Each structure stands twice: as C-alpha cells, then as structure tokens.
C-alpha cells in the first residue's frame, strides 16, 4: 500500500515537472531539451484535428470594405506622442509629399501592414506552427501553435512582425501578437506602433476554403486610446508562387519615389 502511494506521488511529480517545464518554454528562447516547432517529436504529438488548413498562396483583396490600409477609426484619439507624427504626415500630404515612408527605405513593413501588400503571402500550416513568407522583401512571420507562452518582454528580441502565439477556438484560429519593435514601424501613415502594441487576430476560412478572413483588434496605449478593429480578406492564388524579392540600397538609388525630395524624413 505504501509503495503504491509512493508510486502515485512519483507519477504526480513527473506530471507536474512536465507541465512546469512546458510552461517555461517561451516562444523565442527554448530551455534545454525543449522541442522546436519543426522537431519530429513535437510535430508527432497528439493534437485535435485543426478545423482548417490555410497552407497555400494568398493575396489580399476582394469584396467591399477590404482596403489594404489599417486606417484609424472615426473619432480616434491619439496620444500626444503619436499626434506629432500624425500631424506631420497630414502636413506632408497637403504639400504633395509623404511622411517617413520607411518601407520605401527598406525597413520591414511589419505586422499588420505586411499582411496586406500587393504581393502574395505563402503560408504553410503545420501542427505546431504556421509559417508565412510575404513575397515583398520575403519577410517571415511565425505563429506558434504548440502551446508555448509569449517570451518575457524584458528578454524578447523585439521584431517588426512581433511574436505570434495561436490557439484554436472552434472554427477560428485566435492569434495573439506582442513584442513588436517601436521604431520605423507604422500602423498607417503617421500612426506609429510602440512597444506596447498588441494585436489579436481571429482567423477564419470562409467561401469553401477560398477566402481567408481576419478580424483584427489592435491596442497600443502609447499611441492611441481604446481598441481599433478591422476586417480583411485574402483570396487563394493557386497559380502563383512567390519569388525572392529583396530591398537593396543600389535598387533604391534608382527608385525615383524613394529618393525624391517629396520624402519627409
């Protein structure tokens, strides 16, 4: 009887240790022994069948109210820090100029803007993660689905596409993205992203699997008040593949719009 109780305790200890270890597996810095998203043993773990597979090549567009911009909503209110940029952008626009077009200077577009370029996105869905490659500048985005938590913001190496953690809720993939870089990263013209930007995406497959729909909810208390929401849609472009697309200094030297005096830096 005593040995049975001891055995139960050992099992409980092992289970606890496994759970504890798993919760310590952050998205960026895996502790020793943790499995990466492409590890066969991680891929092979038993998981519920996902409601859809978005593997394919997708191009933003189609339908009404589906513009490529993530414009502020009516009645929006910016923080004083963001308002400075917004006002400068409006002034530049009134003068026929453009304010801090960092994408044109080869800075990554970043989430969410990288999702709605005129270039398609290759998406590969695995049980543990979704890999996205936007053709423009081949910018990469990873969405981890294997249960790992976000990296401690004090440790994370911040990025333009942020750190995305997803989980399934019925027919919807819910993706939480944080740990963004605050510099050279814009939501829209004159709307800066800060290190407090947080984006929630609710991703659904509609139109018999031909259309991807994402509802965005974005907060950034250092740039604006409240929640901003958008809904965007993508269509499958099955006859296309993406190619290598770099933004190079020597290319920009010959690009009239990127070195024109019409740019306000």
């Amino acid at each position, binding site marked *: 009887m005593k040995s049975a109780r001891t055995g139960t305790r050992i099992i409980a200890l092992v289970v606890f240790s496994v759970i504890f270890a798993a919760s310590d597996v952050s998205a960026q810095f895996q502790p020793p022994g943790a499995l990466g998203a492409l590890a066969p043993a991680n891929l092979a773990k038993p998981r519920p069948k996902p409601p859809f597979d978005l593997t394919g090549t997708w*191009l*933003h*567009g*189609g*339908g009404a109210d589906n513009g*490529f911009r993530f414009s502020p909503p009516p009645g929006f209110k910016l923080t004083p820090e963001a308002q400075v940029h917004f006002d400068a952008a409006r002034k530049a626009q009134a003068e*026929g*100029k*453009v304010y801090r*077009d960092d*994408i*044109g200077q080869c800075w990554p577009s970043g989430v969410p803007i990288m999702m709605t*370029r*005129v*270039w*398609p996105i290759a998406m590969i869905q695995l049980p543990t993660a979704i890999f996205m490659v936007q053709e*423009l*500048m081949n910018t990469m985005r990873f969405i981890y689905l294997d249960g790992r938590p976000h990296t401690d913001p004090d440790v994370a190496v911040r990025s333009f596409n942020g750190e995305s953690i997803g989980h399934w809720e019925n027919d919807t993939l819910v993706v939480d993205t944080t740990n963004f870089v605050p510099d050279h990263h814009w939501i829209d*013209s004159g709307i800066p992203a800060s290190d407090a930007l947080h984006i929630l995406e609710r991703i659904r497959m509609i139109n018999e699997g*031909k259309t991807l729909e994402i509802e965005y909810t974005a907060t950034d208390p250092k740039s604006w008040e409240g929640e901003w929401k958008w809904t965007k849609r*993508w*269509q499958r*472009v099955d*006859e*296309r593949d993406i*190619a*290598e*697309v*770099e*933004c190079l200094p020597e*290319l920009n030297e*010959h*690009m*009239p*719009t*990127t070195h*024109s*005096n*019409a*740019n306000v830096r």
Partner: protein
Amino acid sequence: MKSRLITALLVIALFTSSSGYGHHSAAGIDRTKTVTVEGTVKQFKWGNPHSWLEVEVANSKRASDIWNFEMNPPAFLVRSGWKSTSVKAGDKVKVTGRPFMNGEPGGIFVSLTLQDGQVLGAGQQPSQPAQR
C-alpha cells in the same frame, strides 16, 4: 544637330489606367497627370521589387536630364509583353509616366514606345483576387 536638340515632349492628360503599384508610398506623384519624354535609354533594370528605366532626355539648356521611371515588378510587366531584353542602353524610346508634383525628372512608368512603334505597358497583377 536636330538630334541634340530633341526636346522633352510634355503631355498632360488625365491618367486613367490602373496600376498594381504598392510596394511603398508613391511619394509626391501626381496621379492625375501623365508626362511623355523622348530620349535614349541609359539603364534598364529588370528586377524585384521594382524594375526601373533611366532615360537621357535633352533639355532646353542644351544639356540633358536623366528621367528615372519606376516600374512594376517583372511578374506584372510580362503581362504587357515585357522581357528583360525589351530595351537596352542606347535605344531611342518614348516613355510616358506619372510625374512628380515638384517637377523632378521622373515618375511612375505607364508605357514605352520603341522605335518600331511597339508599345509596352505597365503590366498588371498576375492574379487578381476574385471579387476585387
């Protein structure tokens, strides 16, 4: 002499064709106008994310300007018949583009006419999403 005095032909017209342009902001471009210039190809780049075309155009000061036209990526341009060999340095061409508001020589490419009269356009998105 006449060839040295080729003057830039400026045609202002309402721009009507659509473009897949969108890598970044078209800084300072007047989308309501077009400009047409005649000159000699200096350089042509066939590449991503944008192709570009530089044309040497004589100006009224008995000198020349380099007009730089920003083009769509090759995947778009092939839909208008473009190849990497369509133009080369030294070719005489007529180019139409959307100009800068501030008068800088250059703009967004709309079309090119070769000496044999062939016209090559700006191309289009290889696959337009349904319902777009």
